[in-house]
């Protein structure tokens, strides 16, 4: 399994925000996670990315990783994009992407001073990969501009490029379409949809069910901190408890 979370539980005092969630995402699989506001989706993402303290166990790319250690989890191969993009505003776009490069060799001081020739070679390859990633999200022409000058939607794309260049085993995307207009959302759906084919598993949480349906081949529905349904979208939407908990409103909205 690329991502295996078992018995994840997050309690805020008496509130069981996430109450023993098991979730596995296989290689090249794209999973959507949906649920009403307050169902525990974001808290679950925060737990598996190490941002909030949680109980349970976590495996990334087949390796056990301790919970609560965002850096270690990221290095194990789990990348995340945020509901509001977390780019380094003072760094240029390409530097933002370079930071996430999978090649962590010769990044330290000793490498920088001692293995200079090898370092420059590696550095050139990094730049090439970073430019390619920026190109994929349509930001190649803004590579040398500070990320702080990008629009909200562009920052989100930059974050995605950063996630891509790191070649994570799994990308966790938290509300990736928030704040995007329809064209941008369509572009985003296309980019995310490509990922499984490139060997990156995907876990997407989004309010826009069209988007989830478009990119995910499996959907997990959460309510009150628990998983209430898990399966192919077409099948899940039909389940009574899902309709009752969540999709009723979608039906109403559509009707």
């Amino acid at each position, binding site marked *: 399994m690329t991502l295996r979370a078992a018995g994840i539980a997050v309690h805020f005092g008496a509130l069981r925000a996430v109450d023993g969630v098991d979730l596995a995402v296989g290689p090249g699989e794209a999973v959507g996670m949906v649920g009403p506001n307050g169902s525990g989706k974001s808290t679950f993402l925060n737990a598996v990315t190490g*941002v909030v303290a949680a109980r349970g166990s976590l495996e990334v790319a087949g390796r056990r990783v301790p919970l609560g250690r965002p850096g270690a989890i990221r290095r194990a191969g789990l990348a995340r994009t945020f509901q509001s993009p977390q780019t380094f505003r*003072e760094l240029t776009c390409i530097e933002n992407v370079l*930071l996430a490069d999978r090649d962590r060799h010769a990044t330290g*001081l000793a490498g920088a001073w001692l293995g200079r020739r090898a370092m420059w070679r590696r*550095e050139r390859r*990094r730049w090439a990969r970073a430019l390619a990633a920026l190109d994929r999200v349509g930001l190649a022409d803004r590579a040398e501009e500070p990320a702080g000058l990008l629009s909200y939607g562009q920052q989100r794309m930059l974050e995605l490029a950063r996630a891509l260049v790191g070649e994570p085993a799994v990308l966790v995307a938290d509300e990736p379409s928030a704040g995007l207009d329809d064209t941008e959302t369509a572009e985003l759906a296309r980019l995310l949809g490509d990922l499984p084919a490139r060997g990156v598993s995907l876990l997407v949480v989004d309010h826009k069910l069209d988007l989830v349906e478009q990119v995910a081949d499996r959907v997990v529905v959460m309510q009150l901190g628990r998983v209430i349904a898990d399966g192919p979208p077409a099948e899940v939407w039909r389940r009574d408890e899902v309709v009752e908990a969540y999709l009723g409103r979608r039906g109403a909205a559509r009707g």
Partner: protein
Amino acid sequence: MERFVSLFVTGVAQGAVFAVVALGFLLIHKATGVINFAQGDLVTLGAYIAIWAATDLELPLLGAYAVAVAALAAVGVLIERFAYAPIRDRSIHVVVISTLGAALVIRAVIVLWRGTSPTRLRGPLGFEVVEVLGARIPKQNLLIIGVTAVCVAALWLLFHRTQFGRQVRALASDRMAAQMQGIRVARMSMLTFGLAGGLSALAGVLIAPTRAVTVDLGFGPMLYAFAASILGGMGSIGGVVVGALAIGLVQQLGGGYLSPDYAEVYPFVLMLLVIALRPQGVLGSEVRARL
């Protein structure tokens, strides 16, 4: 004209030393958010270690300098481990006071080890001078300027063309996000303290041959480097270097052409003016993009 050239070169050389110290401030500040007030005493310690290596170990001069730089890099890491890491999560004031404590410890150690009497570190060029446009310029000043230029260029490359540098800048930009990107925060702070320690030693061995070495050697350079960092907006290599050169020149030319009585004060007047008029620093902008 000779007088101007003489004062100008002196100002640039003094500014260059301030710049090296200020770059140490900058590195640590970027990686950890802390101002390391032990920086000045690290300059002094660097000079004393070079003296020790050159006289007691009888190493050739450049070897002694290298020993000083390496030793101070290690001292920098020790300061990080003992004066910063244990209280990293405490308020910034606690951490800054802790670096002041480290400064006092270093000072006490120097006094116990080498005493309070002035001593001297030889320079590779002795007291030779070279005539430039009629002005007699000590070669050591030219050496200071040259070494600093190389050092600034190397640091710029390090900051902009290596993952290490980008990680430092990412930490400065957004600590939490940097951690989320898998940047090893603890290792980075150790490395930057070490690098800043080495820079201090470099400043120490550059400036020591121009004067007698006492336990106060690094105090003045640290104050001016601090002012330079404020002038430069504490954000970028370019800003810090411009700030440091401005301070060296204002001090020398102000002393030479306005009134020598206030030569030590001009840099701080300049600093206060900048704080009042341009709190983001001379080269600072709203998004401090170009580092």
